[in-house]
């Protein structure tokens, strides 16, 4: 839920990067962190093990200009992707304003993409949200890999409601900011409606 601080004239929004294990959620955040003006960002907090498992979440506060005189501050989170960590995912979804689903383009991970998307839908519902109405963007990551499935196949299997969709290679930043801009725009549009 968007938090508006009238005294500080600041709007705080929460964006969650969701997706299966090792699909590139943390890599997205890392790229955003590396390429953002130091004055516009906070610390990137990452709880991960040496094998790259995100144990709980990554968190990155980010300033994205002003809306009607209010500073907009986006809090970016990732969830642990492994199927076992469902309890953490549910917790992190609390108070979410927008979701980016990062899909792994590799053919052997398609089942995991589908499971993760279904899990997102279910966990949102449990928190009282609806994937049909929440600002939502889909990203096909790892497009550079030789085992990547054709975009049309992925779209057919993962498109939920005609959401904005981006091809990405998070390792070199391709599509990372396009994805972020798209979800931020949807969140702000939603905010203006309220």
């Amino acid at each position, binding site marked *: 839920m968007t938090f508006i601080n009238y005294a500080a004239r600041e709007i705080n929004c929460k964006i969650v990067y969701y997706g299966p*294990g090792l699909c590139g959620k943390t890599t997205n955040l890392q790229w955003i962190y590396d390429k953002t003006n130091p004055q516009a960002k906070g610390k990137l907090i990452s709880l991960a093990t040496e094998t790259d498992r995100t144990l709980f979440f990554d968190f990155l506060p980010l300033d994205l200009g002003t809306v009607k005189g209010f500073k907009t501050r986006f809090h970016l989170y990732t969830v642990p992707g492994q*199927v076992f960590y469902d309890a953490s995912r549910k917790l992190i979804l609390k108070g979410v304003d927008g979701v980016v689903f990062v899909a792994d383009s590799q053919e052997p*991970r398609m089942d995991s993409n589908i499971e993760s998307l279904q899990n997102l839908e279910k966990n949102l519902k449990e928190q009282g949200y609806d994937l049909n109405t929440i600002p939502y963007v889909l990203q096909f990551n790892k497009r550079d890999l030789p085992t990547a499935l054709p975009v049309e196949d992925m779209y057919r299997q993962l498109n939920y409601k005609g959401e904005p969709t981006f091809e990405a290679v998070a390792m070199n930043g391709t599509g990372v900011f396009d994805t972020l801009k798209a979800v931020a725009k949807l969140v702000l549009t939603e905010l203006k409606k309220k």
Partner: protein
Amino acid sequence: MEITCKQCSATYRVNVQLPLTGPVRVACPSCGKQKTLRPVAAEPAGAGSAAPAPRPSGRRRNAVIADEPRPFREFLVAELSKLGFEPHVFETGDKALERVRETGAELVILNVYLRGKLGVEISEEIKADPDLKHSKVVLIGALFRANRFRANPTNLYGADEYIEEQIPAVEFHRIVRKLFPSVSDHEEPEPREYDEAKRLARLILSDIIIYNAEKVERGIREGTFFELLRAEIEDGRNYYESRVPFKVRQRTEFFHETLQHFVEMKREEVLGPRRAEA
């Protein structure tokens, strides 16, 4: 006889004559871990006199329910039938006790307050009767403004368990399985449930592989896959068991089969068909 290996979680069958007359040593075909099967020690004379005769497979267990006619009683009948019991329903305590004595019912569910003899009195009588030592008793508590006054009962009058009317089916099944660990779910799973279990097993394996690529590679080459990834496999199995209904797990071994299939396929890929067979 079927054994699950503690080291690699593989399930294998051994051909032994039961009951065992002496210790028998068996080895897991997957990881070689040895295990000694010992005959069950005989109970001291008199100790098992009230134990029921072994239940022929397929026969449904007898259950007696003493409760007033209400939807909750129907719920108990339906759920017990799913769990392989043959429930008999009575409204009064005396009739219920008569039936328990006649049939030696293995499970007796009693409303605390019954017409005639009270449920708590019947519970005490059953527990005091050496011939009914094997009968498990569950009391149904009466609720008074459940959300205002709520305390766990301190005296169960000898009963083994206590339930209340709002109990969800899953919780009721858990209690019955606690009392009868070998109880099976007689409801046939739907094809969809089998498919979901298979898919979940594949997903868990896919996560294990992608997060442990190096260990997987080494485990396949050295034949130590199950040893190297023991912790991950254990986590995966626990998650699988938490998500897949008991009735599906009881009839299938999808998680284990998925792992086995992957190891065999990968060994052939890495070592070639001949060496993989060796």
